[in-house]
């Protein structure tokens, strides 16, 4: 009788442990994109990012937003530390940096995205935007030119040409 109760208890404890593990360690089971711990950290980073991005954006709650951005950065960094080729985490990290006006950090991360996913044209444009903020216009143009090498899509090529023209026009204005 005592042994039976102990077995029942044991089964209960095992079931509870598995349930808790399922609830609190979702990274390994249900994240899209990166696998394992990297994916888990990326997801947690997005949760923090959205909290800062969405819920606390009004100026009165800027401090709270900053705190969440900080936590998001920690998580994205943890994700790329575990999987350096995890493109999505680099992209997310770049985005938080950009929102925080850390354009140097954003440029570095977007550059990494273009290396990991050369076909991601939007990463080149975002890289160019960060470089423009840093007044590195030649590099911005180069990033956009590099993007053109990655696609035969005429509409995308037209858009990229328009962007390049705008940067060149801005450059000419700066020179004047």
């Amino acid at each position, binding site marked *: 009788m005592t042994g039976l109760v102990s077995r029942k208890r044991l089964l209960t404890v095992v079931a509870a442990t598995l349930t808790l593990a399922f609830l609190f360690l979702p990274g390994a089971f249900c994240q899209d994109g990166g696998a394992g711990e990297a994916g888990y950290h990326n997801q947690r980073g997005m949760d923090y990012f959205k909290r800062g*991005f969405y819920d606390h*954006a009004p100026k009165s709650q800027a401090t709270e937003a900053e705190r969440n951005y900080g936590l998001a950065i920690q998580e994205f960094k943890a994700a790329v530390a575990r999987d350096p080729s995890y493109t999505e985490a680099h992209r997310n990290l770049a985005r938080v940096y950009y929102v925080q006006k850390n354009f140097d950090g954003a440029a570095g991360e977007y550059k990494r995205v273009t290396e990991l996913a050369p076909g991601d044209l939007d990463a080149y444009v*975002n890289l160019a935007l960060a470089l423009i903020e840093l007044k590195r216009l030649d590099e911005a143009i180069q990033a956009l030119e590099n993007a053109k090498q990655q696609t035969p899509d005429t*509409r995308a090529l037209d858009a*990229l040409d328009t962007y390049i023209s705008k940067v060149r026009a801005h450059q000419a204005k700066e020179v004047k």
Partner: protein
Amino acid sequence: MMRRFILCITLLLCLYTPVSAGNPHSAYYSSDTDKVLWFIHASDIHMGTSGSTDSTNLGWLVSQAKNVINPSFIVVTGDLTDSTNGNFLGYPNGPYQTEWDQYKNILSSNGVDASFYFDIPGNHDAYNDQYFNYYLANSVQGQATGRTQASWIRTGPWGTYHFLGINSADNTGDSFTLFWPYGDYAGLDTSELSFINTEMLAQRDASLTLVFGHHPLADTGNSSDTYLYYGKDEFVQSMNQYGASLYGYGHTHVSSEQYFSENMTDGVFYFNVAALGKDSPNQFTVTAIDCNGISSVTQTAGAWPVVLITAPMNRRLGGVVNPYAYTVPNAASNPIRALVFDPAAVTQVQFRVNGGAWQPMASVSDNPRLWQGAWNASALPEGEYTLDVQATTGSGVRTDTVTTYVKSQVLPMVGVTTLTTGKYVTSGSGKNKTTTFSPISTFKRGETVVIRATVKDSLGAVVANATVQLAVSGASSVDLTSGPSNASGIAEAKWTTTAPNKRGQGGTPPGSYTVTVTNVTATGYQWDTSAPSVSFTIQ
């Protein structure tokens, strides 16, 4: 799952609820001047766009335009912000609270509130924001209702009109990309469709229903224009079921007036308005509903005057025959009405038909922005006519033009069925004295010839209050007009002849005479042109 369940319940309710929806065919031509409502439709403010006049134009819209036009409301169909924060590539990588702050500041400093200003989201308000948190926290309607869609009514002497603002923006929160669908997989999800159906059902007694959204319903032919990729069929079905009259949208940055009838019994006016804040020509639209007839004019922000003909309706809206336009009778005093808006004084408003002479219009006393004139179309043959209304103001001269169709009135025929001559004869005396009509055809000079005509319509029914014109011919001639016919349809005319003097000279010449019907007039009838006659003799 829950959303699907709610939609199913709503659709079932719709199926089992008798629909007495808006009726786009209910427009009518009337001289009433108290059944005119107008509003402003603007779109694509794109607050934050580099190098644009976004904030200037929004400020103008909610200050000068609002004060001068005095619309019933302003509806702004999306892309309230640009999501670029002024980056000069124009690449939307937001959302940015600074853009929303600027948007809110302009509106609040001009006293805009949710009872008057209806702003709905567009794709630029949805990038990277799946649940529209920025829109809900910052837009006028989002803050007021906690929803991304809006529903409102206006009630007046015209009855009730229902207006609906829908959220057609992408529901995934995707980022903008250079590739189709550019982060804008637009559509209406189940909860959005459920709201639309619920509101249309709730306002099913409205005389008209007008809907606004950001996106076009279907492919525009321009590959960069996204449109409703999901939920369109259900939405069009709802508009059809509830008799929507109009779908107004933005997104494309061009203005057009078309008609959308795909999978619809009748179809809806399909009005596209260009961006107010980004790209030229920075336009807005004034739409009016006059006796249930819809009209609109699109104009560049800041350009005055604005002139909009509200009656008669434009038969050639969008280049095709407007199925909801009424015809105009060939009556002598057809009303022409136009709204004229200008911050400067309006010195003259006039109209003309088919490029003819200008004729004056006058301001309606209790509605000074509304002008009216009277158009005599009685002599016009049936067909299409072009009407121009031109306003001259301190700002300049502007003309609005519509095409209308004059239709000949088909009136029932009326004519004289019997024509008799005679005289009144008195007999008896005292209480027994009576006077009766005695038909005779021979009269002495000096007697009064009484001519009786019986007036009947083409179905043989007698017609009262008709007047008969007669011509007497013979040794002398005279034209006579009867008094109005009595309840038996009898109209009577009298010719008093003259007797010769004592020497036998003068007087009405004796001889044979003939009296002939030359016209019959009766309200609501036209003469059948039959001209019966009867002969009599003067001795």
